[in-house]
């Protein structure tokens, strides 16, 4: 019984992990059809923000929940103004440019901070379930992932900005004709996506080593989750994360994390062969 509970929490943690690293990317991709290759580096910047500010004596939770999203969000807006805005109708070029950006950020951070692993201690300690011990922080991650999805859903569904954003997503020309400044919407969307990614990076900092190249370990899963999920932001991320997270975590239990990753990819490939538009291209296609 205790063991079953542990397995359940571990599965939830895997799903939550995918939701966290994919949510920002899903917003940017779902709204603008831009795949941001520098996504992993946005995560990394979030992680570094937390590591550096806590070293300066800032409270860990302030660093994770306020500073990381703020810094990466502002950085995202700058990137959008300097690079992305010129490439909105050139899909492939926007991918290539963000790839260049990704190399640039890795290189620059390596030059400034060195190629060493930084970290912050995992807060909150642990709790026991029967004979097993778990880190309480795991529950924070699961809770945060659920909260982020709920916030995106509520933001899109019940706020004025969400309405405008959705209309721009559906038909930019018509939205502009009705007086929406679509450029502003795109800029804000990119900023929000980046801020969420920064938040995720900050949340992951206490459990992952923060290195300039850490993005590489996350982007594969993030991309595959978003692509498998399809264009609906909340439903897509949630369904793909649940399916892929459960599966890869089960394989990880049996044969180690690397094969978990490989299994995740294999399932995603087969899914895409059956549903080329992603899960939400066929099922839940009218959801958010």
């Amino acid at each position: 019984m205790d063991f079953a509970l542990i397995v359940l929490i571990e599965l939830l943690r895997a799903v939550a992990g995918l939701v966290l690293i994919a949510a920002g990317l899903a917003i940017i991709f779902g709204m603008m059809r831009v795949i941001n290759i520098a996504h992993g580096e946005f995560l990394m910047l979030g992680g570094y923000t937390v590591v550096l500010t806590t070293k300066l004596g800032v409270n860990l939770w302030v660093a994770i929940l306020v500073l990381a999203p703020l810094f990466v969000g502002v950085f995202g807006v700058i990137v959008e103004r300097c690079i992305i805005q010129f490439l909105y109708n050139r899909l492939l070029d926007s991918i290539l440019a963000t790839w260049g950006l990704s190399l640039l950020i890795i290189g620059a951070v390596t030059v400034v901070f060195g190629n060493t692993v930084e970290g912050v201690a995992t807060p909150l300690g642990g709790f026991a379930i029967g004979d097993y011990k778990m880190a309480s922080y795991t529950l924070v991650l699961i809770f945060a992932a659920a909260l982020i999805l709920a916030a995106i859903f509520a933001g899109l569904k019940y706020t004025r900005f969400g309405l405008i954003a959705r209309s721009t997503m559906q038909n930019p020309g018509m939205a502009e004709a009705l007086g929406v400044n679509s450029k502003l919407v795109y800029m804000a969307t990119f900023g929000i996506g980046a801020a969420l990614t920064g938040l995720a990076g900050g949340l992951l900092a206490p459990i992952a080593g923060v290195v300039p190249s850490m993005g590489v370990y996350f982007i594969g899963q993030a991309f595959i989750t978003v692509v498998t999920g399809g264009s609906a932001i909340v439903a897509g991320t949630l369904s793909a994360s649940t399916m892929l997270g459960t599966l890869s975590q089960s394989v990880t239990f049996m044969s180690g994390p690397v094969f978990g990753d490989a299994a995740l990819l294999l399932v995603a490939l087969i899914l895409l062969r059956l549903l080329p538009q992603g899960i939400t291209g066929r099922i839940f296609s009218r959801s958010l």
Partner: protein
Amino acid sequence: MAALGYWRGVALVAAIFLAILLFVPAWFDLFEVLQMTQYIVLAIYALSLAYIWGFGGIVSFGQAGFFGLGGYAFAVISINMGETTVPFLLTIALCFSFAAVLGYFMFYGRLSDVYLGVVTLVVTLIMWKLINHTAGPEYAIGKARLGGFNGIPSIPIMRVPFTDREMDPGEMFQYFMGLLIFVYLGLHVLIRSKFGRIAISIRENEVRTSLLGYDIRRYKLMVFSIGGALGGASGAMWATYQTFIDPNSFSLEMSAKCLIWVMAGGVGTLIGPIVGVVALQYLSLKLGETAFINNLVILGIILVLLVLLMPRGIVPTLHDWLRKGLALVRQPSREGAQ
């Protein structure tokens, strides 16, 4: 008439390559010959992407997957067989088949461009993770230990085909240059064949081509597989040139470099990417000597600037300037004829 001009250009390039093949080993010292051998290998790698991108409209973000696979396959097979001719051919066949299987999922799933890019990228990432994970002694294929992040050392040097004699650096240069000329001419013949024209029409307009009755999935699959085979061949050449291969050959940086070379040289040409390899590798060699600029920063800046300022690449841009310049010079004499 236009076709004749086309082949004249190709023949000119091939003649220059042939001259390089014949004279460089005698005229340059060993270090420079080795350096140029490296450019040749990377040029074939760049051509693998230049072909599928420029003449099939398929942008693979994971060309390093084939490069690395080719290197590792060649290492494992040649270490086990103790010679290089058959392993080289087997490697190419293996990479062709791997590309065909991957391509089946992507093209027969009718994935769009973006998804295709992401899938190729992620496949390469997973391969990189898997191969990094193989450090223990239990990961061995026959006599070859995969070695994880340490890579595979002592890969056999390329032998003179069907003999047991190792090539010296000059011979290896000539052999590889010969392969480059073969690939360059072969791709041109392929591009001008019926198959190649259909592939180009798919690049131009997929829907129209399929409405004309061509099975675009099959053509794309074939183009992608040829690209995979070329990428694998260059990986194998890289492995035997260095006598060493490690997981970096699968890295994102390796895929990015290939995209940068092709973009810089010009998508839709074959000579452009070769120029791109030589120019950018030379540049990063020189800038690397200064040692205070990180190589990734340089690559990143080049890629961003290329996309924003010169999306068509060096060779087409120069070509345009040249044509405009010539037109200006010739203008007065032409007016009567028109």
